[in-house]
């Protein structure tokens, strides 16, 4: 039957185009193509205040993304924020006196962790700790200090 054969072809085309659509969404729209389950190691950093940092926030060194934040928790003994960083295994030469700071990309952008390498010869390994940290700058705090200072000067 001629009719059903063309119908078959059209249904086939329809299903194929739907799958192409799904494929397009997966590859072109989402980050699946760059998502490779690479090896990584985890290090922790303690901050006085981790501000608006979130799980999955980027970790960068010299402006290049080298990992992600994997977990954030509160330490009830030291009242600090403990941030776990997942660093790609290929970047395994971070010195153990690396400093971690929380910055904001742009004025209203999301927060990220910036690592600055130190001069030590020993490298950070799985479970390593970053000792020197700089907390997030809370805009309200900074504004408060600024206002306080300017009124002091007027006196």
């Amino acid at each position, binding site marked *: 039957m001629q009719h*059903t054969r063309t*119908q*078959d072809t*059209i*249904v086939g085309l*329809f*299903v194929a*185009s*739907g*799958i*192409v*659509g*799904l494929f*397009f*969404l*997966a590859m*072109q*729209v*989402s*980050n*699946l*193509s*760059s*998502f490779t389950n690479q090896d990584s190691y985890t290090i922790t950093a303690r901050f006085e205040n981790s501000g608006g940092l*979130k799980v999955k926030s980027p970790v960068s060194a010299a402006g290049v993304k080298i990992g992600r934040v994997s977990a954030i928790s509160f330490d009830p003994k030291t009242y600090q924020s403990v941030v776990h960083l997942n660093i790609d295994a290929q970047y395994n030469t971070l010195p153990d006196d690396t400093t971690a700071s929380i910055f904001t990309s742009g004025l*209203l952008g999301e927060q990220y962790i910036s690592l600055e390498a130190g001069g030590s010869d020993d490298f950070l390994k799985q479970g390593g700790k970053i000792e020197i940290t700089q907390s997030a700058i809370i805009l309200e705090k900074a504004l408060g200090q600024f206002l306080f200072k300017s009124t002091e000067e007027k006196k």
Partner: protein
Amino acid sequence: MIEYLQHLGKNTRTSFTKLGRGTYFLIQTVTGITSVLLRPRLLLNQMYSVGVLSFLIITISGLFVGMVLGLQGYYILSDFGAEETLGVMVAASLVRELGPVVAALLFAGRAGSALTAEIGLMKATEQLSGMEMMAVDPIKRIITPRFLAGFLSMPLLAALFSAVGIIGGQIVGSGLLGVDEGAYWSQMQAKIDFQDDILNGIIKSIVFGFVASWIALFEGYDAIPTSEGVSRATTRTVVNSAFSILGLDFILTALMFGDN
């Protein structure tokens, strides 16, 4: 007062009876799936009338929805100097919400109403009872292939809707308004997560396809076998499908995207 209460009680009872009949109907339909898989020809014919014939309306609507999103998003984002994130906005709203929901609403209007009318008329012209006389189970022969076709077509249609919409947003955003094309795609790829956004959108569309096909087929099967009854059933299909799709969308969104 008593009359009012009686009326209320009767209405409540009728609606619960209908829900029960609908559930029974759904169980019968789902158990018929194995026998349909043995005869894929039936399914293929229905894929044609349910899926392929909705293809055009879905893609064209998707294109325009994406273009409007590109235009409106550009006006708002350019106030903050954040035009580059247009891609994220268009893709996130399409993949998470508009793709599954609008595609399902269009599907209910285009394919659902046609299914109800078809089955209602089959019932009115006693084709369904004729089949029963010939010892052919009308649920397995008529209902299940249509149900399966709707259920399978919906995710494909929703994915097409989102994909075409994202391209439409790109046409308007970087073609007409001058957003950098590289930024449109790279920001999108950085922010849209396959599991959180795209997979959840697909799950949504599967649920909507299930519900929309179920409602359309049941309303047709349950229609009063007169021309007026069929017309009422068709109206009820569109209204009930729209309600259930939007209501379910709220619940699914709260479940899926609630924790961040």
